């Protein structure tokens, strides 16, 4: 008996149920916890769609980091959330919203049901040219060779987002340390985990990064894992967030984009186009870009979670 339709059907029902719950539940804290669970279930849907790279990214970022970010915000906003909940719109606004939402869903459903047959695909083109990159993972080849401009711009967007977040700091804290100070509870469970997990997490991250060339994985997933390990050590109080004025922090943030740009421009004289790789050097160059990007992504993602500077540095 084929269980696949049953698995897919239950998964879709669960995903929709949790999604509806996150917008309907009264308590915002419960809603954000629901959203983290939703991210993990969505990762299962990605597995069912045979997109393991996307599943890893969704689980790590959609479920993990976004969850931490929103839970931190929900805790700080808790005192005011129930007050603001009183601003609920009138019934006719709700009815109009329901009509609008229903219309958009219906239109998208019609699109889904009338997608062209046979489905258009770029897989043959990727299969034809993947040998020139020396990579085995088609998604990594698209990210770092065929559509490398997207990935470069994305790395820049991450840094821009962090600059925007930092610029929300009050003047007196500019250049200081982000987030609150976490006190170390020497014998606490969190401190124990923060000592136990990072060595494992770092090894797993390097593995995920390395196999990303040929198997599902890569710099985003590995970078997110490294960011999570760093955040764990910070939240357990084992280490403090660096002041954002420090030079090494700034260098760590831009290294990924800078290496990407340098190799990209080097492609103009050596391979005839921006972001083109010379014959035979594609894989080592891609690995250099990925390694630099992984470190920058890890630092940027962790600092994005921690938010703007809120304390003066003690130096």
């Amino acid at each position, binding site marked *: 008996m084929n269980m*696949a*339709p049953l698995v897919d*059907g239950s998964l*879709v029902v669960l*995903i*929709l149920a949790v999604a509806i719950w*996150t*917008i309907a539940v009264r308590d*915002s804290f419960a*809603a954000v916890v629901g959203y983290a669970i*939703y991210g993990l279930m*969505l990762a299962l*849907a990605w597995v069912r*769609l*045979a*997109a*393991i*790279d*996307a599943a890893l*990214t969704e689980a790590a*970022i*959609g479920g993990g980091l976004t969850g931490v*970010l*929103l839970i931190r*915000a*929900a805790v*700080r*906003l808790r005192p005011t*959330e129930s*007050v*603001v909940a009183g*601003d609920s719109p009138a019934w006719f*606004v709700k009815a109009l919203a329901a009509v609008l*939402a229903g219309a*958009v869903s219906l239109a*998208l*459903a019609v699109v*889904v049901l009338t*997608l062209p047959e046979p*489905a258009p*695909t*770029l*897989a*043959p083109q*990727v*299969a034809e040219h993947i040998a020139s990159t020396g990579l085995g993972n*088609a*998604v990594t*080849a*698209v*990210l770092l060779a065929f559509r490398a401009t997207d*990935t470069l711009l*994305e790395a820049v967007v991450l840094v821009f*987002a*962090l600059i925007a*977040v930092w610029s*929300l700091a009050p003047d007196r804290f500019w250049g200081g340390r982000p987030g609150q100070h976490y006190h170390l509870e020497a014998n606490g469970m969190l401190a124990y985990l923060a000592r136990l997990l990072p060595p494992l997490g770092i090894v797993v991250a390097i593995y995920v990064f390395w196999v990303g060339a040929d198997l599902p994985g890569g710099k985003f997933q590995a970078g997110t894992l490294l960011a999570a390990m760093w955040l764990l050590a910070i939240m357990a109080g084992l280490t403090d967030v660096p002041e954002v004025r420090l030079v090494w922090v700034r260098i760590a943030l831009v290294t990924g984009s800078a290496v990407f740009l340098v190799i990209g421009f080097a492609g103009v004289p050596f391979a005839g186009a921006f972001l083109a790789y010379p014959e035979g050097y594609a894989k080592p160059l891609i690995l250099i870009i990925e390694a630099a990007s992984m470190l920058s992504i890890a630092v940027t*993602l962790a600092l994005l979670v921690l*938010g*703007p500077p809120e304390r003066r540095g003690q130096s």
Partner: protein
Amino acid sequence: MSATTLFGLCGALLVGVGIYGLVVNPQPLRKILSFNLIGSGVFLLFGVVARRGAALGMGGDPVPQALVITGIVVAFSATALAVALLLRLHDVSGTASLTTKESPEPSDT
């Protein structure tokens, strides 16, 4: 019904649920959450398009899959910026409301 159609309809419904939540929930944090629901629904539609393009031993068209990975990371950075703006509003005004007492027009996010 094929699995791709099923997940495609799921993505379509998620976009609808997100739009409803975005308009109806008054708390900005909940609006950010709803916006992420819309985004994840759109990503799921990308996944369906990718899956339908499976060919030559690949489980799906790798181009939309790669775009989704980029999209998830950019969505996270936009969410982080939105949360930072919200917390700053909360610090400055002591509340996280988007409405003022005189004009109860819910403003857009």
